[in-house]
């Protein structure tokens, strides 16, 4: 059973897994470092950086801005992504595949293209870069996340259920509310959680669509480039990782085993 080849494969797989996880562990350790200098091995551990970061008003403001942007972008993208999934699933019309293609472009293309495209667009239309332009940009690339999740679920649902509901006298709205919606609610919720996570830590598109506003990722980028408050950067980076991991894990729980391979 345990051939040398299998043992070698297992060792290789574990090595790749270690490569994938080690940097995250390193970040956790550095966040608890007592020193202002980034040095390995860490001499002394403390919660000092956490306290400093908590007392930093800029960080708190950036965190709140990121939460607001992510929440608003998710609130816009969720109904739009849901409608898009329904329309593309149920109807065939000219431009059907073009619309499906357009919807996935914002994440299929490199982020820099979406970013600079929106940047020149806002420039042309005379809209000043602001909170609103960040939200518009984020909502645009979040739509596809909800769309993908809901569409994957719709494709697995038997049509007979909605037909049965109609046969039993429910109208279209009642059927949607009582039959279809409960069946796709978890997929929609999972999509919304992933959209929140994606928006919360997005940096490339945000760079091109934010004006004077500083989201948490923009704050991190700025602090790293200036080489200042790096012990607080360690903490903020850890906070960002945890804040995105929670919705991602939650969404996977919602989607269950079957949804695991669908992004």
């Amino acid at each position, binding site marked *: 059973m345990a051939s040398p080849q299998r043992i070698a494969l297992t060792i290789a797989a574990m090595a790749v897994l270690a490569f994938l996880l080690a940097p995250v562990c390193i970040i956790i350790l550095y966040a608890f470092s007592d020193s202002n200098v980034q040095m390995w091995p860490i001499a002394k551990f403390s919660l000092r950086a956490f306290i400093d970061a908590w007392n930093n008003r800029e960080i708190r403001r950036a965190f709140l801005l990121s939460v607001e942007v992510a929440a608003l972008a998710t609130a816009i993208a969720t109904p739009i992504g849901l409608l898009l999934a329904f329309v593309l699933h149920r109807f065939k019309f000219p431009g059907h595949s073009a619309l499906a293609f*357009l919807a996935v472009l914002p994440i299929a293309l*490199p982020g820099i293209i979406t970013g600079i495209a929106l940047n020149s667009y806002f420039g042309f239309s005379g809209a000043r870069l602001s909170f609103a332009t960040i939200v518009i940009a984020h909502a*645009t690339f979040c739509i596809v996340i909800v769309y993908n999740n809901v569409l994957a679920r719709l494709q697995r649902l038997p049509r007979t259920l909605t037909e049965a509901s109609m046969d039993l006298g429910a109208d279209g*709205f009642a059927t949607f509310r009582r039959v279809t919606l409960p069946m796709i609610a978890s997929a929609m919720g999972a999509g919304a959680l992933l959209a929140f996570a994606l928006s919360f830590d997005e940096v490339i598109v945000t760079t091109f669509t934010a004006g004077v506003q500083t989201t948490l990722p923009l704050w991190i980028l700025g602090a790293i480039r200036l080489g200042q408050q790096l012990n607080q950067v360690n903490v903020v980076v850890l906070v960002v990782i945890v804040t995105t991991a929670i919705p991602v894990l939650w969404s996977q729980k919602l989607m269950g085993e079957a949804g*695991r391979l669908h992004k």
Partner: protein
Amino acid sequence: MTSAAAPLASGVLRNVSAFFWRRPAALGWVMAAPPVLWLGIFYLGALAALFVSAFWQVDSLTGAIRHEWTLANFQQLADNPVYRKIALRTIAMALVVTLTDVILALPLAYFMVRLAGRRWRAILFMLVLVPLWSSLLARVYAWRLILAHDGVANWAIGLLGFPPGAIGYSYWALWIVFSYLWLPFVILPTAAALERVSPSLLEASADLGGNDWRTFLRVTLPLAAPGLIAGSISSFSLTLGDFVTPMLVGGAGSDFIGNVVYNSVGVANNTPFAAAFATVPLLVTALYLFAARRLSRAEAG
């Protein structure tokens, strides 16, 4: 009032519902309107703006954008050897990173699909998924700490008795970090592709005397190749469009396409030139997609 309004409202709803039931196309249009408008106004509009502004130019005196059609940006890209070098450097890095990721993804994906038990498999999927969704910036920063002069990498090298190296801020650093960043994006499609290879074929190969390694090379890999190629598109296009990684772990003078675009917008305020240069990754990604499709068709046939 409410008691009178409730049946009235439900009557209206019923009528509306009946209207759409008789005319499903009308319902389709009503439902399609919000996504079509949003994507049309913001995204299609933005892509059009990108395309148009690539053919405009910034007035060197006033700094304002002159709305006259010109190929000057593309001329500049073609004539200046610096930009050609940057474009080639970016594409070469994207290819090397993609190859590295495919090689790294295979053992873990194979382990997940064929060797791990149900429970382990679920845990492994989570461990791959969380980094996929977690912050690009956080993951680049972790490597900046690891590869720094006083970081973990040099410490480990020192333990082995070697003098500290200068991995940080070099092409080596970029290669490692890019490969790390996009690895989960390649593992998941690779696992999905391996999963679709029927176990009965593997058993047949084993029955005919092929050992594990031969079966993998002769049966599994060719059958999984289309999925592998599809998965490699992410790592390729993500490398082409990134500017954060070169900015944070790249050395001096290792500009990538993303950095030039970023600096053209942020520093030089020359959006038209940035737009023109941004068409390079767009075209290269399209070419890669085209080649990948041809290749996977050839493999499948």
